[in-house]
């Protein structure tokens, strides 16, 4: 078979004036604008495009479109490009895949000699034992893995996302799909028409029939004049609940790919039909092509597929291919008519080309075999909508059965008719889709309290009064009297499938997974029904009895880039952040927040806080403004401790547990006024606690009068900590007496700080030092921070970050919810069991905490390694002696610059919780070290004299 470019075809899509140069495996080639990579190579006489996955057999064109399994190539750093679909561009560096050292001389082709060993399940059976050899197996097998090369240095290309809410989405732009789009649009619907191909028209594009071409022009003209949004080179990849559609657009002018998430009110599935390859001996030999491939090559790109052809035709499209081939000068050696009992058995020739075709018992010399054996209905979108298509043996394909009423099928998927019949059915489908979309639109609008009022009643759900399409009879042609390739992507033959069935994998779903048939890049579009037919044959049953696999998303493979898309993840920073950035900050990501971790030397920051005074930006700390007469009742319900008698200006620590008694959050809440409280939560718990509060107020206690406002980011929060903090605060505060008697530990005051009124100041802190926690209206955060830095320069004021704070809180033994507790840590395990007031009438988690009070529970304890220089890793296990029996774990560990030793918090079994208990910690290295539980959480200043100061 030698393909070659012929004279101008009236239907061709190439611009012969625009020559494009490119490279194929390093050699220079050229093609025209409008060529696909494959058509340009075919026009230049290339026959071999790839080597097959398992046996490395030479492979040529099969379908010459997106689904062609043999045309996967590497373009630059882009692997697995579909050369049958991707348009040629000037300068492309195209290379073959799966061939080493070269396409023409592939060493791994030895696999085909060993073919009898590569039976289904070969890998499962062979490389199972001995297990210890698996790493070696894996290394060797990896060199045989199919596919292109991934370049880890590839720059991140821009991928985009779009959200849209069209009334009607039409998937497929053949004549029926276009008519559906036009009719829906005329009926007033907003319509998106999505074409998998580079231009609309479906099979009309490569029909040389004059009437077809006239219709194509007419449809395209109408589309241009309509309001329909047309997306070409785009695929509806999935249909999800309530017509939520994923659409990947590959020809976006700026983005490499754009993922469109469309909420369609009705979906019209009009994907047309996909020509099914036929199974016979030698059916994967280069030179065997589908009738669609022949017609596309001739009519779209002016390429003559071969010199002398046998055409096996079982339908009108096969017959049309005969005419197309003759027009470009291919000699027709024979037409074997599959409708009247004609049959083909095999091809003969080298592994690289067809020399002869055995048909009706005779060998016919030919370099090309064109096969028109039938159609596969790509029912994927219907499957995804829950439909179970039904097989019709008379028409030899599946048809929709009962899709949901907001998903409508038209075109070849729905049945057969002449062009006018298909167009009429498409138009009727479009009208129905628009009518149903109008009803959905009305309902959605009526349900939206704040939307524009809707007029009138919801339109009745339009009945389906479309005249159904017919079903043309078609012979059931799946396999000839010989065996051949069923899945060319995965190199699975009909013999393999029969063997799998005999091994017991005789359900399609099992056989598919066992053999991997239909699981390659063609996504089963070419292989599924042949696979089902092979299993049916092995079982001696019909295709209807065997049933088919369920087609799941995606309709066509899509890149991870398209799925990842553009990042919408917001980053949060405090209003003080510019100062941090200007001062050598090292940031840490905490949820969405970027926070100062340290400013160079966290140990020095700790020493400075203990000696002088430090500032930390704690803006992400959760803050809820609570107002109303019932706030104390709410606090009593959500915290385990008591809140009914908190005085104005007082602050209290509280622990929250969930209904299962597990620690949920902790923090301090202060009373700012008669009916006004401020609750603080952990930074990571800010969102969750807000929802928790709303949940209780809205659902359990809707009669309580409490108004909740999240004010986390309304305030910038600064903790001023250290023995000199009072002196520093005195220099910037007005209107408040900072004396220890007047403003003692665990109280809150309002103040004007650095000229900013409306600041709250709490005498609390996490570091164990005398400290003032300032909440400043957010816009003034940077100003107040700078004022504090200026005012304290002679006091040695310096910033400290999260790391310093973590060291200091660990020195003080304060646990962090989620770090030192986990999803099983009940309230009493924190060591703060005395906070839990079981005599309250009700609070979240009360029954579990009551029952837990009688049990001995794992405890959070402070632990010091005997060797003060060893800092065990967080999550290091605490074990019994030399055994691996786990008795607990280290939950936090740091080296304390204050105590000059390593310090830890951990969770241990109850019998290890007493002070003085010796434990063994298993380090990551495997080494075991001794450590001692100490009898209080605080490694430093256990009496708390410093913070009360």
């Amino acid at each position: 078979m030698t393909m070659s470019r012929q004279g101008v075809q009236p239907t061709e899509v190439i611009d012969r004036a625009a020559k494009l140069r490119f490279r194929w495996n390093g050699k220079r080639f050229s093609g025209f604008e409008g060529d696909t990579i494959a058509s340009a190579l075919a026009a230049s006489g290339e026959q071999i495009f790839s080597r097959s996955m398992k046996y490395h057999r030479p492979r040529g064109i099969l379908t010459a479109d997106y689904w062609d399994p043999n045309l996967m190539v590497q373009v630059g750093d882009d692997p697995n490009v579909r050369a049958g679909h991707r348009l040629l561009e000037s300068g492309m560096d195209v290379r073959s895949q799966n061939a080493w050292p070269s396409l023409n001389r592939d060493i791994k082709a030895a696999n085909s000699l060993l073919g009898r060993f590569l039976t289904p399940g070969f890998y499962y059976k062979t490389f199972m034992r001995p297990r210890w050899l698996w790493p070696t197996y894996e290394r060797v097998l990896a060199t045989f893995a199919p596919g292109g090369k991934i370049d880890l240095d590839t720059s991140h290309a821009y991928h985009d996302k779009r959200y849209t809410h069209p009334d009607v989405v039409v998937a497929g732009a053949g004549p029926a799909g276009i008519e559906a789009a036009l009719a829906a649009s005329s009926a007033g619907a907003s319509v998106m028409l999505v074409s998998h191909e580079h231009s609309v028209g479906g099979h009309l594009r490569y029909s040389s029939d004059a009437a077809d071409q006239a219709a194509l022009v007419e449809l395209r003209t109408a589309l241009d004049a309509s309001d329909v949004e047309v997306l070409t080179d785009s695929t509806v990849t999935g249909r999800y609940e309530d017509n939520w559609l994923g659409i990947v657009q590959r020809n976006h002018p700026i983005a490499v790919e754009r993922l469109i998430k469309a909420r369609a009110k009705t979906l019209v599935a009009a994907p047309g039909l996909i020509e099914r390859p036929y199974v016979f001996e030698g059916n994967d030999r280069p030179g065997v092509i589908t009738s669609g491939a022949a017609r596309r090559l001739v009519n779209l790109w002016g390429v003559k597929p071969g010199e002398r052809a046998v055409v096996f035709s079982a339908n009108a499209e096969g017959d049309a291919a005969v005419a197309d081939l003759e027009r470009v000068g291919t000699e027709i050696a024979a037409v074997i008519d599959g409708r009247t009992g004609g049959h083909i058995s095999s091809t003969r020739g080298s592994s690289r080309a067809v020399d002869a075709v055995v048909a009706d018992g005779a060998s016919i010399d030919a370099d090309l075999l064109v096969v028109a054996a039938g159609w596969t209905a790509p029912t994927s979108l219907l499957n995804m909508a829950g439909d179970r298509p039904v097989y019709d043996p008379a028409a030899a394909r599946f048809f929709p059965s009962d899709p949901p009423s907001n998903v409508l099928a038209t075109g070849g998927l729905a049945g057969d008719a002449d062009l006018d019949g298909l167009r009429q059915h498409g138009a009727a489908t479009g009208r129905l889709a628009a009518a149903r979309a109008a009803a959905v639109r009305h309902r959605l609008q009526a349900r939206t309290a704040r939307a524009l009022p809707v007029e009138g009643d919801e339109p009745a759900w339009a009945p389906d009064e479309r005249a159904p399409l017919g079903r043309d009879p078609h012979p059931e042609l799946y396999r000839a009297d010989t065996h051949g390739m069923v899945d060319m992507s995965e190199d699975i033959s009909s013999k393999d499938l029969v063997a799998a069935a005999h091994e017991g994998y005789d359900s399609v779903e099992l056989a598919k997974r066992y053999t991997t048939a239909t699981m390659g890049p063609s996504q089963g579009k070419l292989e599924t029904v042949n696979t089902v037919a092979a299993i049916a044959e092995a079982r001696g049953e019909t295709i209807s009895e065997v049933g088919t696999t369920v087609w799941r998303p995606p309709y066509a493979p899509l890149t991870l880039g398209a799925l990842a898309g553009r990042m919408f993840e917001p980053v949060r920073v405090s209003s003080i952040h510019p100062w941090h950035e200007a001062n050598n900050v090292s940031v840490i990501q905490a949820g969405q927040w970027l926070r100062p971790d340290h400013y160079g030397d966290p140990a020095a920051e700790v020493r400075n806080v203990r000696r002088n005074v430090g500032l930390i930006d704690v803006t992400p700390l959760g803050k809820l403004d609570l107002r109303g007469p019932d706030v104390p009742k709410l606090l009593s319900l959500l915290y385990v401790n008591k809140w009914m008698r908190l005085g104005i200006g007082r602050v209290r620590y509280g622990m929250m547990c969930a209904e299962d008694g597990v620690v949920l959050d902790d923090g301090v809440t202060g009373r700012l006024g008669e009916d006004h409280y401020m609750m603080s939560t952990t930074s990571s718990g800010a969102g969750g606690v807000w929802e928790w509060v709303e949940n209780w107020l809205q659902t359990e206690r809707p009669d309580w009068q409490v108004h909740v406002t999240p004010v986390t980011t309304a305030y910038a929060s600064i903790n001023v900590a250290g023995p000199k903090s009072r002196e520093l605060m005195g220099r910037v505060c007005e209107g408040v007496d900072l004396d220890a008697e007047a403003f003692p530990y665990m109280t809150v005051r309002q103040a004007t700080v650095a000229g900013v009124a409306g600041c709250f100041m709490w005498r609390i802190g996490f570091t164990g030092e005398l400290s003032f926690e300032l909440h400043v209206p957010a816009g003034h955060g940077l100003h107040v921070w700078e004022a504090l830095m200026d005012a304290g320069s002679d006091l040695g004021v310096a910033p400290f970050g999260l790391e310093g704070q973590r060291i200091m809180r660990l020195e003080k033994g304060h646990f962090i919810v989620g770090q030192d507790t986990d999803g099983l840590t009940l309230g009493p395990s924190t060591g703060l069991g005395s906070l839990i007031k079981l005599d309250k009438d009700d609070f979240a988690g009360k029954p579990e905490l009551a029952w837990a009070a009688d049990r001995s529970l794992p405890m959070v304890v402070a632990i010091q390694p005997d060797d003060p220089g060893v800092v065990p890793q967080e999550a290091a296990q605490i074990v019994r002696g030399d055994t691996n029996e786990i008795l607990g774990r280290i939950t936090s560990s740091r080296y304390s610059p204050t105590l000059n030793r390593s310090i830890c918090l951990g969770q241990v079994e109850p019998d290890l919780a007493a002070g003085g208990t010796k434990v063994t910690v298993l380090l990551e290295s495997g080494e075991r070290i001794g450590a001692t539980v100490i009898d209080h959480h605080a490694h430093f200043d256990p009496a708390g004299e410093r913070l009360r100061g």
Partner: protein
Amino acid sequence: MLLVPCPNCGPRNSTDLRYGGESHARPDPNTASPSEWRAYLYLRDNPAGWLRENWYCASGCRRWFSIERNTATNEFRDPPLPGDKRGGAA
């Protein structure tokens, strides 16, 4: 993706809401037996059919509401009941 009919905001993508699970009443914490309380915490009817469940309109009005959904077909039954989350009126 499910469209969930929030009584305030109208139909919204389910990712805009937080699923609150099956509605059921909270037992009296002072009299509940361990088995009653743990049934409340962990046991769900999980029917194939109509189920009263709770949703929180986290990205919209931030209201909890209760609504019936058919778990087999994902139809919602009108109207959602604001605030009524733990059963009660059905």
